């Protein structure tokens, strides 16, 4: 009786998801290599064919966010598909993308002056199903604008990443997820030098999923989840007490 009930619940969950327009792309899955983080997403897979929102508040975190996004894009890029990176005042340095498994020549950069133009370009790009990922960097995104983007991807099944740098308000938008990435000190285990990029990844909102916070490191061409160190917290407490 018990397994049958479990099956029914899963079946119902799938139906609810399909009613909520969460389709995913048939036959395509993103292998993030995150282990149990995938359980935070609906259907236990990273939602493709949707728009994701990333928020960063300072330059250092913006770099961390772009690094994390580049890692995701590298995993997502198929052999034949190109990526559009649309921004104003871009500081991204293409040669660095090699580190995240992206051939920089497969990215087309659109450098614009106004936020309005960026929005138009993102929407047009999201409608083009020959692309795999569209990345847009802008600061303000209203609910209406985000809904237009969401409607565009529902037709074309393109994945969109919107990186909002220093937004005035963190308003509600129609994106499936909201992320905040911040940098963490790299681990060297007593060795000299600077280690692999390590981030504190906060999934603040996810539609039909469970938000959470994790620590992730980019090493050996893939994401690696790191268990948070218990002693570091006690150390902090001790310092505060002292």
């Amino acid at each position: 009786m018990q397994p049958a009930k479990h099956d029914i619940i899963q079946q119902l969950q799938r139906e609810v998801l399909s009613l909520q327009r969460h389709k995913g792309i048939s036959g395509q899955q993103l292998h993030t290599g995150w282990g149990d983080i995938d359980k935070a997403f609906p259907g236990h897979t990273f939602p493709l064919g949707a728009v994701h929102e990333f928020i960063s508040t300072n330059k250092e975190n913006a770099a961390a966010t772009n690094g994390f996004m580049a890692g995701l894009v590298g995993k997502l890029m198929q052999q034949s598909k190109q990526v559009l990176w649309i921004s104003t005042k871009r500081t991204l340095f293409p040669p660095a993308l090699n580190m995240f498994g992206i051939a920089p020549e497969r990215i087309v950069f659109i450098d614009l002056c106004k936020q309005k133009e960026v929005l138009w370009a993102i929407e047009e790009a999201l409608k083009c199903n020959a692309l795999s990922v569209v990345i847009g960097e802008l600061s303000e995104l209203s609910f209406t604008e985000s809904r237009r983007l969401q409607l565009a991807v529902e037709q074309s099944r393109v994945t969109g990443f919107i990186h909002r740098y220093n937004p005035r308000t963190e308003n509600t938008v129609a994106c499936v997820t909201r992320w905040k990435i911040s940098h963490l000190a790299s681990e060297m285990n007593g060795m000299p030098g600077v280690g692999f990029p390590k981030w504190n990844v906060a999934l603040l909102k996810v539609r039909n999923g469970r938000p959470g916070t994790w620590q992730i490191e980019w090493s050996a061409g893939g994401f690696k989840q790191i268990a948070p160190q218990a002693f570091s917290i006690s150390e902090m407490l001790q310092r505060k007490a002292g």
Partner: protein
Amino acid sequence: MGKRFIAIWFRHLTTDRMVRSQPELKDIPFVLSAPERGRMVIKAANIAAQEKGIQVNMVVADCRAIHPTLQVFDYQPGQAEKLLNALAEWCLRYTPVVATDLPEGLILDISGCAHLWGGERPYLKELLTKLRGYGYDVRAAIADTVGTAWAVSRFGQVSPIVASASQMEVLLPLPPAALRLEQSTLERLDKLGLHQISSFITMPRKALRRRFGQGLLSRLDQALGQEYEVIQPIQPAEPYQERLPSLEPIRTAKGIEIALSQLLEKLCLRLAKEGKGVRKCIFKCYRIDGNVQQIEIGTNQSSRNVRHLFKLFELKIATIAPALGIEVFTIEAPIVEDTSVIQDALWDFTEGGNGTAIAELLDRIAGKLGVGSIHRYLPDEHYWPERSLKVASSLAEMSETCWRTDIPRPIHLLPQPETIDVTVPMPDYPPMLFNYKGVLHHVKKADGPERIEQEWWLQQGLYRDYYCIEDEQGARYWLFRLGSYDSGEPKWFMHGFFA
């Protein structure tokens, strides 16, 4: 088929223009004058003034004696030329080859055009009625050669249309001035009592050359059609051009769209036959008030896909101001390139298809936001970070060299390195502290230095020693020191952020 030309003569070009802008001057005698050797000399006079006996090149003071209330305005040099150019552009609706004939005429090559208006007579009538409607006092003539058309338009008394191959009969009774000769030649002919072309056309050529020079003979040959006369069209003919005249003036966006798609279909059909595609395309609308509106598109990849080209134009249709209406549409492709036929057939199914879809998206973006906004980067063989990449010129371009992946590069690179204040324990060591934009960072971990020398064949200057730095917050930076501590205090710069 033989050539046919129209010569149009604007008898009072500049004064008619004045009357057009100030209708109250219509029946008042007035002249345009300019200073010449300390006197005001008349450069143009209207009909009313000429009836009073006032002629061009008279002195204004003398004319005031003839007619005390004569109105005098300033003559603007270059105005006639400007007017003629505008009129020539207007005439493009009648024929694609129009040339200006300074100081007061136009020459139209109408070979093969007149039948569209139902023959030469209705064609000429239509042209003259329109021009006279605008208030210009014009005369015109049609002939096989430019010279005869010119002569008949200025001096002809009988019919403005000279039948084919009958230049000789028409020219005989005309004065020598009809041959566009120099003033000195005309004076000499006059002195000898040769007041008609018929009186010297039969003379031996040798004698004519000796007395009047080669100029007279060549003008004679040009008028008779024995020597070819080249005219300089204001708009060189485009090899890839299509025209669409409209029955009634078009004023709506929908109408323009229909015209555009019809023209594009014609053009693309022709391009498909020749295996070519458009890289640049111009759509022109000739308005009934003489203005020309045009929109232009460019493509990243040569294309003859009507739907795609139409979409590119569609973004700009709103910028066309039809005003009272548009009577002729033309489309021309100044830049065309070869396209492979196979790619055309497999439009949407292969990798090439993907490329096409992306190229079309980029065309739309370039059309709306400018071509300069699209970049794609390839590695360049330089160590200097700012020069380590170059912009690719097309979507398909690939590089022979590989990207360098053995050394870390920051994901964000500042367009200009920014100065920072540092505390360094020892020369050639990474800093302990640095102050970037008023915030103090304590360095916890560091890598480096990575020395990058100036490429002396491109630029002179100090080398840079780069350090990867991690501060106590875990943020990672790319700093460099310009030069060494041997020569005083070197400057430190922030150049990028690592992920």
